[in-house]
Every structure is written in structure tokens, then in C-alpha cells.
């Protein structure tokens, strides 16, 4: 059920768009109304979530240190794994966001009898990295549909991505890598018993939805041969807030657009928000310098303490007997 339901949901969503456009001619709904709505939900939701996080205080400096602290001048300080300045923390964040530094540490723990051993386990890191970078390239590539003239950078990315000239129309490298990475991440969740055990439907759904988006995108180009000129016209219309529909573009296009819309609408309310959250994680984005620079807790409040005066009152006689200095003789 953990996997079945999300799978069913994605298939149903795709079917909905197909049937809606093929038979009910709901192109306006799937091609204009829902995309705008999804974008709105995405933007509002994303900002809402980030603001909610941002409004929570950061009372303490709780850096997780992964290297040597800055202490004595002759002890080699690990600037990136244990930053002592904002610059260092930014460097650490760049490594996290762009290269998934922490995931690169991953190990596999094994037990044989009483022995515990550790093996390298870089597949998750590789799969995650390939997926996210491919996604970025795919997104950037798509900008060519929304912009006229197409910026050189964007067409350049498309050209490099399509360099291998596989098939006509040209198959992009990232189409393959993103598919492979998603398939790997999905297979891992299904096949690795431990990961399957801790997974929720909310973990399968986004994976399957993304797979749906990618597959529908590839299919519409290569199987259904959707006319990209029409697509571009439509997208330019959407982008300029003057939507023009193409009723002849084929329902495959609408399936793709609809799944993307669902993804956008779902994004802010799901675990996909890790994309925003990673920047705010206090264990990673703070420099470990709280002995050097006082960190202020905005809600620090006075607390009840047991003072020295009370202590001495309680133990005065005993303290006097052993010759401890006293503040009050009485």
C-alpha cells in the first residue's frame, strides 16, 4: 500500500489529464488555469514555509563540527568542516548544496558475529547528485521555451546536453541521467529492506511523480512527436500572461504540463521543501565561534538559581571546620 497508492495516484493524475483533454477538451483547464494555480501555490507555499522557519528563533549556536576547531595559531584549522567565520560557513554551505558533502561521507555498517565493519557507500550520494544536477539542467533547458530570444547560456546548455546527437529529435543526455537516477532512487527505496521499512507513501509519491513528469516529457517528444514550435508559442503566451491555447498540440503535452503542475503545487507542502530548508539548517550554516563571539538568544530569560549566598548559608559550619574561606562569618 505504501507504494501502490502513490503509484495509483500518479497514474490516475496522468489519466485525468489525458482523458480531460482528449475527450472533454479541457485544454483551458489543464493548459492555463491549473498551471497558473500551481505556480501560485508553489510561490505562496514556498515563501510561507520559509517565513515560518525564519520566524523561529535560533537561540543557540549549534554547529555540528566535522573537523578541527580554530584554536591555537599553530594547530591546523579545518576551515570548511568547522568554519569559524561567516565566509567559512558559506563555503561549507556551498559544498553541501552543490556537492552534497555530508552525503559523501556515507558508510555502510556491517556486522559479522561480534565484528562490525564499515564499507564505502557512495551510491546514494551519486544517485542524489546526478538527479539534482540533471534536474537543474533540464529546468534551465526548458527556459528556451519561455524566452524569446533564447539567451546564449540557455541555448548553450541545450547544445552541450544534446551533444551526443542520439536519435531525432535529439535525445538529451540529462533525459537519460535523470531517468536513471530516479529509477535508482526508487529501486533503492523499494529493494533495500531498511529504507523500505522507514519509507512513507510521502516518500514514494514525489519520486513517482517526478518519474511521471520525466517519462511524459520524453514520450511527448519522441513517441507522440508533439510539435515543439506550437509548444513554444504556448509557453511564451503563458510566460507573458497572454495565454494562447493550441488545441492541436496533442494530449501528451497536457499530461506533461499537468504532472509538472501537480509537482509544483505539491512541493511546498511536502518533504521536497528540503530544497529551501537546507539553507536554514543551524547545524550547518553557523560558524563554530560561540566562544569568541557571543551568540544572542532572543528569548533568553532569567532563571532561578541556587546562589553562593544560599550555599554558604547551608554549609557555613562545615566549611568553617575545614578552613574554607567564608563571605559571611555569622
Amino acid at each position, binding site marked *: 500500500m505504501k507504494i501502490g497508492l502513490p503509484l495509483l495516484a500518479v497514474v490516475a493524475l496522468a489519466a485525468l489529464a489525458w482523458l480531460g483533454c482528449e475527450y472533454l477538451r479541457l485544454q483551458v483547464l489543464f493548459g492555463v488555469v491549473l498551471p497558473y494555480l500551481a505556480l501560485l501555490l508553489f510561490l505562496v507555499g514556498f515563501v510561507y514555509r520559509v517565513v515560518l522557519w525564519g520566524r*523561529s528563533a535560533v537561540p543557540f549556536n549549534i554547529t555540528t563540527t566535522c573537523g578541527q576547531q580554530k584554536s591555537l595559531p599553530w594547530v591546523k584549522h579545518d576551515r570548511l568542516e568547522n568554519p569559524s567565520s561567516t565566509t567559512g560557513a558559506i563555503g561549507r554551505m556551498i559544498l553541501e548544496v552543490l556537492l552534497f558533502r555530508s552525503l559523501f561521507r556515507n558508510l555502510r555498517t556491517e556486522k559479522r558475529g561480534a565484528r562490525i565493519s564499515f564499507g564505502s557507500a557512495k551510491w546514494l550520494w551519486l544517485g542524489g547528485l546526478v538527479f539534482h544536477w540533471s534536474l537543474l539542467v533540464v529546468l534551465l533547458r526548458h527556459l528556451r521555451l519561455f524566452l524569446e530570444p533564447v539567451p546564449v547560456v540557455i541555448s548553450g546548455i541545450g547544445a552541450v546536453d544534446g551533444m551526443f546527437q542520439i536519435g531525432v529529435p535529439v535525445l538529451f543526455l540529462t533525459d537519460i541521467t535523470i531517468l536513471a537516477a530516479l529509477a535508482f532512487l526508487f529501486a533503492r527505496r523499494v529493494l533495500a529492506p531498511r529504507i523500505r521499512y522507514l*519509507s512513507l507513501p510521502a516518500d514514494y509519491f514525489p519520486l513517482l511523480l517526478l518519474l511521471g513528469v520525466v517519462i511524459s516529457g520524453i514520450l511527448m517528444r519522441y513517441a507522440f512527436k508533439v510539435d515543439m514550435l506550437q509548444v513554444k508559442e504556448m509557453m511564451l503566451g503563458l510566460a507573458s500572461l497572454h495565454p494562447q491555447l493550441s488545441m492541436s498540440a496533442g494530449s501528451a503535452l497536457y499530461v506533461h504540463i499537468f504532472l509538472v503542475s501537480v509537482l509544483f503545487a505539491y512541493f511546498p507542502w511536502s518533504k521536497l521543501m528540503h530544497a529551501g530548508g537546507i539553507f536554514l539548517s543551524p547545524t550547518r550554516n553557523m560558524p563554530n565561534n560561540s*566562544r569568541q563571539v557571543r551568540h544572542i538568544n532572543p528569548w533568553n530569560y532569567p*532563571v532561578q538559581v541556587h546562589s553562593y549566598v544560599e550555599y554558604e548559608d547551608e554549609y557555613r559550619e562545615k566549611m568553617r571546620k575545614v578552613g574554607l*574561606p567564608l563571605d559571611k562569618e555569622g
Partner: protein
Amino acid sequence: MVKQPDKQELLDFGYQAPATPWLDTPVDFRPGTYCHGAKGKNLEAVGFPNARDWSPAEDDWKLPDEWQNTVIEGIADRMKKYRSFRLFMDVCVRCGACADKCHFYIASGDPKNMPVLRAELLRSVYRRNFTTSGKLFGKLAGARDLSEDVLKEWWYYFFQCTECRRCSVFCPYGIDQAEITMMGRELLNLLGLNTDWISGPVANCYMKGNHVGLEPQTILGNVEFLMEDIETVCGKHIEPSFNRKGAEVLFVVPSGDLYAEPGTFAFMGYVMLLEQLGLDYTLSTYASEGGNFGLFTSNEMAKRLNSKIYAEARRLGVKWILGGECGHMWRVINQYMDTWNGPADFLEVPVSPITGSKFENASSTKMVHIAEFTADLIYHDKIKLDKSRNDHLIVTYHDSCNTARGMGLMDEPRYIMNKVCNNFFEMPEETIRERTFCCGAGSGLNAGENMELRLRGGLPRANAVRYVQERHGVNVLANICAVDRAALPAVMDYWVPGVAVMGLHELVGNALVMDGESVRHLDMRGEELPRPMVQEESVTLAVDSQPVAEAAPSDLATVTGEGEKGAGKAVTDA
């Protein structure tokens, strides 16, 4: 004495997933894997709610009325106060990178000991009460109601987390289960659900200044005994001062070092070193605890206990504070103390009067770690060390979780180690520094009744020690943590017999050549040295002031340690 569990039984587990989903698997309170409940009088002493005697083994936990509301409001309140908490509730993708990084999971196979699932225990309730999908879809969205069973499950598993932060190192978003456990324990404390082994020490620290409740005269008496031991070892008579106004430095140690072996040997080491230097310092009976059991209870309680350090420094009029070897004590000092109880503007930026080095990294807290202090001395060649006095010891070094992952104090102790002993070998790299394994009993889990859990939690560490024991004949596990010194001897005796647990400054004390000392026949533990150490003959000065980073410590160890294998006699724990 606690009955030791059978080894084969302990090891009879695997990492396969159980048949029932975790949401449908009830918690099993197995004796040996949880601590006694807090006593009413100890909660009362610090004004905690729902103070009463209770037992986790019984069905009725004597919860207050409306307890669910208290918890849910407590969650809402803490989400506003802690970005970490709210964020960590939201952003986990359940990638499982942290799953097999926790020593309790590694050594029990219990899936709820995977950091990610430990978090889900609380996250599921968060979803139910604070997210739309959780409210609408319930279990399908991984959400569940807060029932008494759920609460008991929290209690069981939040006191099976040592707040060691190893999971946080591996998480792509830095999700720190220690942080979630701290929140979970705060919530439990709103209902008076602490453990005896934490709440007792908290009450003691609050009223008497240290966690076993040593009264001032007892502290002095204990220290007097230790000074006699020092006299036996090196012929020097030392009288450290207490509560002395006008001293330059206040020295705060974890109280374990004052009364319990092997911490007392580290304490003797500190005192001998400071005596040799002629440092103008004083100890305090009021602030006689560097450690902080409040940290295992609630942020507020930790702050209340920690306040004594600055208060005492101010009262005595010292210039700065020196801190002994302790793990969570240093997490507190490094990441919380100044924020809670600062600014320490009545103190000065610490300067070592011996070397003139200014500790810029402590310019705000004004508190220096003794390993930083000693490393600086050795680097500047201010003390004489005779490494060969530690030749009977083959040493490996255990980074304590808190100094490694909540501070980054890693190379200072290693630098010292390489200067005070000839046989130093690192454990495998997956088990040291930021990837170090917990002793298995941190964050207040070191209770006798919790022995099975402690032994399990200590297994990954013991496993790495055995590795170097087999290869290099290691017979000493050095560390800079009072909890390590309390917890690891049992773990070593059980899994890797023949390995003694030793504070870093015990090794320093052995090697330190003091002015006017007698010929050393005994080491700090009062055990016969293989041959008498005549100081004129074998003094090795720490003159090679090489930066520590030039050679990896393990390289140094292999070079200097060759030919020494098996030369040392096995040191047993006194």
C-alpha cells in the same frame, strides 16, 4: 552488582527489517535497557512539575490531567523557540543515510534506534497536530495521535539516544537527532517523566554544586587523599586551594574527577601540572561541577546549573576560567554558556601566564580547555616530559562525541598524546574524530540498571578498540571525558578485557618531570613502573616544536610505536 548479560545473546541480532511496520510495533520495556523513573523528591528540589515516585515498568505512569495538551502546547512553543526543531520536523527526506550511523542501532538492530525513526516517533505526532496532510490522511501520511503508548515509546527511545550527534554528521541537511531528543526530553519533563539517574544528579548539582552531592568538606577530604597519592608517586606535597578570592584562574573540572577512578588520576595529573607551572589558580566547592546534567533535562535546567561557573568566577574575582576534561561539559561551554549566562565582561581574555599566548578563540566565554592550555605549554617548550614513563602503556585515543562534534577539539589532545607517550595508535578512521563512536552512556544513560543498553551502545567503540588491541597490543584507551571514564571501563571489561581507560592528563602526569620530584617507581595509579625512572637519565624534552598538523598523528604513531608491541604490561583498572 548488575548481572552481566550473556554475550551470545547480546550479539544475536541482525539489520534485517522486522515484519511489522514500526507504527504497529509496540514498545517492549526489557529490563536492562531502560533506567528507573525519577524520584518525586528530586523533581521537587528543582521545582519540576508532576513530582511523584513512579516506575516505567508499571502500567500507570501517574500522568497529570490534560497531559496531551501540555505536550502539544509544548511542541508549539518549542517550534517557535527553536528553528532547528521546526526545520528538522519538516525537511527529513528519509534517505536513510543516518540509519546505520547510530551506535544503538548498530548494536541492537532495533529499527527505532535508527536516528531517522527516532525522529519519526515525534514527527508522527507533529504531523497529526500541525500539518494539513497529517490531519487529513492520518496514518497514510505517517501521522498518529499522541496516546499513552506513544508517550511511553518516546520515553524509552529518547532515553536510548546519547545525544552524540553522529547522525548529524552524515545527514545531508545536518538534521541532528540530539536536538530532537533534547526537545523530546523537555516535553517528557513537562510531565515529570525523567530518569532517576538524571534527576538525582540534577538535584544534587543544584543544591550542592556537583552531581553526586559531595558537600564542601567531603570534596576537601577526597582531594586530600588524592594529594597523598601524588606524594606517594612523585614525593611532592601539593595543596590546591578552594574558593580562594583573588586567584588569577578559576579551575572547573567535572566532579567525577574528584572522587571516582579513573577520573581521579586525571585530576592528579592536572594538579601536578598546575603546581609545576606555579599557576595562580583556585578550585571551587560551589561551582564544583563542570558537567551539566541539566542538559539532559531541559535547556532551562541546564542554564540554571551552568550559572554557577560565571557567578563563582565573578565572586572570586578571577581573570579567566580553565576547564578540565569532560565532553558534554564542553559542549555546554562552547555552544551554550555565554549565550545563557554571559556576557562574561567581568573577566579578561585568557592569557597563559606561562607562555603569554592569548586564547583568542575563547575571547568571549573566557574559558579555556585544559588540552588547549597544555598543548600550548608543550608547543612553547615550557614543561619537561619524560615520554618513556608511559612506555608500559600502548595507547589509543577516543574522541568524545561532544568535543568532536560540538566543538572540534581533535588535534590538541593528539598533539599532547604524541608528546607524552611513545606508543600511540589511532583506531580506524571511520571511528575517530567527527565520526567517533559514543561510549554508549552519554546524556545520562550510565545507570547500573541500564547495563544491557550501555554494553550495546559501547560495542561499536569496543569493536574499534579491539582492532588496535589485536594489531598493536593497545592496553589503554585515552580520552578527555568524565562520562567516558565512568562508562567505558565496564564496556572494555566486557568486550575487550585488558584495556584500561585513562584521562589524557593522567598520561601527562606520568610523563611530567617536576622540579624536586623523587625518582618515580610508580605510575599515577600507584602501580610499579617496569623500571625506576631516574629523571636525569631519560628526560626527553619536548623541544621539537613541530606544528601538529605536519604529520598525521597516526603516522607519528606508527613510526614511534614500532618495536614496542607487547612491551607494555597489561594495565588493569584499579
